[in-house]
């Protein structure tokens, strides 16, 4: 048991437990904040995987952008004044079974296929520079397309949520 393993298990636990809370909680706010912790856990896992830039990006965008957005959405779409916002579930049992099955299948699949992958010798290096170069060279087109997508999303979101709308 090395430090690496312990840290891994810690972050994995955070992620998964938060995930459970997100999914199984009755309270939207609790779900939202657990999602926060999930994102953080995932970011930690990224760091362990030598993806430093991505870890930070994850925190910045997911937590700072998407989660805030979700919170805004929660606030805007619920008429409740207090924090206690309840919500119900939909055919829980079949989905539970299905989720268990999927998890089990995938795990089994992963285990059977890649259980013997070794650890490659790696040199710790920052990935930012390399990622930037990759984005500008090999992945230029996807990059441009992604920016167009963002633009479209921006315009679309702005347009869709404008106020003056006759129903």
């Amino acid at each position: 048991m090395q430090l690496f393993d312990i840290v891994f298990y810690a972050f994995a636990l955070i992620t998964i437990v938060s995930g459970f809370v997100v999914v199984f909680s009755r309270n939207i706010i609790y779900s939202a904040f657990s999602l926060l912790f999930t994102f953080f856990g995932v970011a930690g896992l990224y760091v362990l995987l030598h993806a430093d830039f991505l870890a930070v990006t994850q925190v910045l965008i997911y937590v700072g952008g998407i989660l805030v957005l979700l919170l805004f959405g929660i606030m805007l779409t619920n008429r409740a004044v207090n924090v206690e916002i309840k919500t119900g579930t939909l055919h829980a049992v079949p989905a539970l079974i299905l989720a268990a099955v999927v998890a089990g299948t995938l795990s089994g699949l992963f285990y059977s296929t890649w259980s013997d992958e070794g650890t490659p010798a790696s040199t710790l290096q920052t990935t930012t520079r390399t990622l930037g170069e990759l984005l500008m060279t090999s992945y230029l087109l996807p990059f441009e397309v992604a920016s167009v997508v963002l633009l479209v999303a921006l315009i679309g979101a702005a347009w869709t949520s404008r106020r003056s709308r006759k129903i």
Partner: protein
Amino acid sequence: MDVFLKGFFSWLPNVQLVHFLIVSAILFSLGMYGIVTRKNAILVLMGLELVLNAANINFIAFSRYGGLNLDGQVAAIFVIILAAAEAAIALAIVLNIYHRFQTVNIDEVSNLKE
């Protein structure tokens, strides 16, 4: 039973690719459960985010252990980008739905059914 436990516990320490994959699998199924189960639209979106995160973990794990070099991370970047865009649009739509139906309970937003 004894052997099984011993096997299980011997598998724990040396963290490799498969451990990350299993985490991602669990997360994925959790997220899927959330999508499928939840009635509130926002919570469905949260489930969706979980799924996407699980996929990201997968990508990056393979990028580190699976010989993808940094292509996996690039993919993960794009996933994040698109997740963000999609979350924005989705929320805009949810707001519209709320405006229209006075509720975000997707059960009740069923004018297209039948």
